[in-house]
């Protein structure tokens, strides 16, 4: 692949995204203070020692944001992983098997998508225990409906190709056809979708935590930090804007990369890239 053909926006997006990943992985090494460590006054302004000042309980905003970034990326990543594995495997299987299995799965997905994701998530979170595992599962399963639709649509097209017919005639089973014939050929549209689902997961998690229904204390994510500091806004303290701004930078940079992959795969029209 020629590096010069990558547009500037995609390079910037990639650099920033890798920066976020780096921060997420090495959070404990990068953060100057502990997660819950109170080091100063409430909502102290920026100084040489504290580049962004302190939060609603006098904790260093930078350190807290580094840990919050880690939580956000971890949960959104895990939820995206679940929605992708579940959605694509079920979608491919429905397309390959057809018949009643396809019918039942597709109608179930239609029904689940008839209720807005946020509303259904709120319903389920009202009774489930509030912890990170629940969050990851709820987000992953609800979002897998979108991946299911896309992967089923892609797999239906691939399923009628000659090489799939050949594999069937040689007597290969469903799992061979799904993993060895369909998956490699459906990969490029799915990778572009992966970026968009990850963005959606970040925004969704941040919204839930902002509403107080996502990550619970003492853990913290970026949406939760907005909630913690939102009271400061009316006292001219912009601390809540900083984590919200970080979320925006993260989603925009992933979006720039996803947009480029999407254009690239749609230009190739099924060719090998």
């Amino acid at each position, binding site marked *: 692949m020629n590096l010069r053909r990558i547009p500037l926006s995609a390079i910037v997006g990639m650099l920033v995204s890798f920066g976020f990943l780096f921060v997420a992985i090495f959070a404990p090494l990068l953060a100057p203070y502990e997660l819950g460590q109170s080091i100063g006054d409430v909502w102290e302004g920026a100084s040489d020692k504290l580049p962004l000042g302190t939060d609603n309980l006098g904790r260093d905003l930078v350190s807290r944001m580094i840990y919050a970034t880690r939580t956000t990326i971890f949960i959104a990543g895990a939820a995206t992983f679940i929605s992708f594995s579940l959605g694509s495997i079920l979608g491919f299987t429905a397309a390959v098997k057809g018949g009643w299995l396809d019918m039942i799965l597709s109608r179930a997905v239609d029904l689940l998508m008839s209720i807005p994701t946020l509303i259904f998530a709120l319903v*389920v979170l009202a009774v489930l225990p509030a912890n990170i595992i629940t969050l990851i599962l709820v987000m992953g399963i609800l979002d897998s409906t979108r991946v299911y639709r896309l992967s089923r649509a892609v797999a239906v097209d691939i399923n009628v190709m000659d090489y799939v017919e050949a594999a069937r005639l040689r007597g290969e089973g469903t799992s061979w056809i799904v993993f060895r014939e369909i998956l490699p050929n459906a990969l490029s549209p799915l990778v572009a979708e992966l970026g968009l689902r990850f963005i959606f997961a970040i925004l969704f998690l941040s919204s839930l935590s902002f509403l107080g229904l996502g990550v619970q204390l003492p853990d913290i994510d970026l949406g939760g930090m907005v909630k913690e500091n939102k009271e400061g806004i009316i006292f001219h303290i912009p601390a809540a804007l900083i984590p919200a701004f970080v979320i925006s930078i993260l989603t925009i940079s992933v979006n720039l990369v996803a947009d480029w992959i999407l254009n690239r795969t749609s230009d190739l029209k099924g060719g090998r890239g």
Partner: protein
Amino acid sequence: MGHPILNLVAQRIALGLLLLFLASGLIFIGTQILPGDVAQSILGQSATPEAVANLRKELGLNDPAYVRYFKWLAGLLQGDLGTALSNGKPIGEAVSYRFSNTIFLASWAALFSVPLAVILGLFAVQYKNRWPDKLISGVTLASISLPEFFIGYLLMFYVAVILGWFPSVSIPNESMSLLEKLDTIALPVTVLVLVVLAHMMRMTRAAILNVMQSAYIETAELKGLSPFTVIRKHAFPNAIAPIVNVIMINLAYLVVGVIIVESIFVYPGLGQYLVDHVSKRDVPVVQACALIFASVYITLNIIADLVSIIANPRLRHPK
């Protein structure tokens, strides 16, 4: 049978009602048949067995699930939304006040965003691939990636707190005149408009471009019609269905976006009511609110379908 279009419309409405029924079932299942005991998870692990038993009785959890579902559904059909666990009051009263607030907010947002989106969409088509178009698609990409609360608090901080043009919290009351109410909800309406505008505009642009590239538009231009006549008689009638579809989908999105915007501006709407009661684990309230939101969402989607059926001349004037 009657006119084929009537059959299609009737079919679509019947399908919508079925979907609504199934959605109510799904919402019920979501809160009742999850692993673990609902009463236990509402009260937490430290609750005494007596308290759990009392709550089970109060919630009617000793009946089998399908009996409870049909009781709930029968109540709903008679306009009885049940009683809230947290304060023991009927849900219907609180909901009707808050629902009308939410509709007030959402309809003003729709009133501004829909014409603005269509006009800007036309503008983007007019300047296709020139800088206004590129600027619009760049802003679109950015605004799709922004969380609602970032736009919300940014506006609250700069417009309400620093400039002091509008109040930072939006709590309208009965004694206010319409103008005062509009002043109160100006910021939440702006956030909602910004959130749906980009998407609506982008899809309007795509819909109009799609129509403008058709062969019959070229024919109309080549036979010497004025650009205005081409748009009025040829492009617009064919673009109605996709544009209305886009608008309805975004209005449905507006209904969901309202939940977060209400929380930002402490607006006493249905969304905030729902969120409050999710954290209180007040299951009957959550079910009732979720069903109302889902019904509005499903209804708007059905209207979108119906409009595209009715706007299709092939279906309206069968051979």
